[in-house]
């Protein structure tokens, strides 16, 4: 037991090193690198906490995709960094902030130590009702059946965020292509990896979705891998981002939420409530939603990272 405890303390210390570095670094790019490392280590913490589903999400979205997003933003803002780095808040504010942060940390630490024992849990309820869906992974059960409404609304939040990002485009560029057009030597290393890695990534992404019925995985995690592979191909200049006005892409963006809504309304019409799956068809229905969702998630996440339209569609 002491061995395991020592390991956990070492892991927590390394995680906090990453966190401190994210806050304390003077330059932005190393701070972003620190944050990505922090996210990677957090995935280890999640595995240790017995939550590999969350570890997958943290590794894919929390660390990888957020990291890529932050890197490109940091690189674009680099020219504004010069005068900003000098500008520091005065000492009083910093001391006050430190006192406040310490107080919040202490309060949280005390509440960690005072958590009720035995802990309240819904795991038994989730286990009792697992037979209703025929899925073996309790987290997928919660996401797709017991709390399916949350998951559907989250899809809509993703879509709204994308609409928000797009609407930041200047009027004359509306309907154009997001981000810069990337160029690289078609015989170069970058183009090579962008040709070899995506097929592997697509298989892994679909595998992560497929396995989520009974093992950790899911549509978000799989979709994130697919999005990363798409972005990789774009970064290598092998393909261009589609214009935001493209109809096929809009259909893909809507596929997940629409299938979800249709199934939900079907539950209202033929079953007991919105999103109530008929017992006999629960598993195929959930799979149908998940397959529609992985496509939508991949396209939405990819476009969120690509950003608002910056070029006219013809360019």
């Amino acid at each position: 037991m002491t061995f395991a405890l020592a390991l956990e303390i070492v892991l927590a210390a390394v995680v906090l090193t990453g966190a401190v570095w994210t806050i304390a670094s003077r330059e932005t790019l190393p701070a972003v690198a620190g944050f990505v490392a922090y996210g990677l280590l957090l995935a280890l913490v999640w595995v240790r906490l017995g939550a590999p589903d969350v570890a997958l999400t943290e590794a894919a979205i929390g660390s990888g995709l957020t990291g890529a997003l932050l890197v490109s933003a940091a690189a674009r803002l680099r020219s504004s960094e010069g005068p900003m780095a000098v500008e520091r808040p005065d000492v009083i504010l910093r001391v006050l902030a430190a006192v406040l942060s310490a107080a919040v940390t202490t309060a949280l630490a005390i509440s960690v130590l005072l958590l009720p024992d035995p802990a309240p849990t819904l795991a038994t309820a989730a286990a009792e009702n697992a037979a209703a869906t025929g899925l073996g992974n309790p987290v997928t059960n919660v996401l797709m059946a017991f709390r399916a409404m949350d998951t559907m609304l989250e899809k809509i939040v993703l879509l709204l965020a994308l609409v928000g990002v797009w609407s930041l485009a200047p009027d004359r560029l509306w309907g154009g292509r997001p981000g810069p057009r990337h160029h690289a030597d078609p015989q170069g290393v970058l183009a090579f990896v962008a040709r070899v890695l995506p097929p592997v990534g697509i298989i892994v992404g679909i595998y992560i979705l497929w396995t989520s019925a009974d093992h950790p995985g899911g549509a978000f995690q799989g979709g994130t891998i697919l999005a990363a592979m798409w972005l990789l191909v774009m970064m290598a200049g092998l393909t261009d981002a589609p214009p935001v006005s493209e109809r096929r892409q809009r259909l893909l963006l809507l596929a997940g939420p629409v299938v979800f809504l249709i199934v939900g309304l079907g539950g209202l019409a033929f079953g007991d409530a919105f999103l109530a799956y008929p017992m006999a068809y629960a598993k195929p229905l959930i799979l149908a939603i998940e397959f529609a969702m992985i496509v939508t998630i991949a396209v939405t996440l990819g476009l969120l990272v690509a950003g608002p339209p910056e070029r006219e569609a013809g360019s």
Partner: protein
Amino acid sequence: MSAGTVFGLCAAVAVGLGLYGVITNPQPLRKILAFNLIGSGVFTFFGVVAHRGAAAGFGGDPIPQALVITGIVVAFSATALALALLLRLFQAAGSATLRADAPPSAGSDPAKP
């Protein structure tokens, strides 16, 4: 001291560090980073609660775990939107500061997209 306690304390420190960063760091991008740090600290805290609720043969309570997954995705979309807003501010105003009295920096030409 159980497995979760160490990571619970770690989460508490991460939230404190993030809060300090949000308040004191003048650069908006760093504020967004620090805010993400607060978020991940809260998620980890919730993960500790889930871990303590391990029962029925599961490694943890699946309900908080599912909520955290949803939370991570929503945090990502918020970050993407915030960064897009920031980059647009930088394009439009020529500087990425939140101060009202800041002079436009020479870094970018507002007329150029």
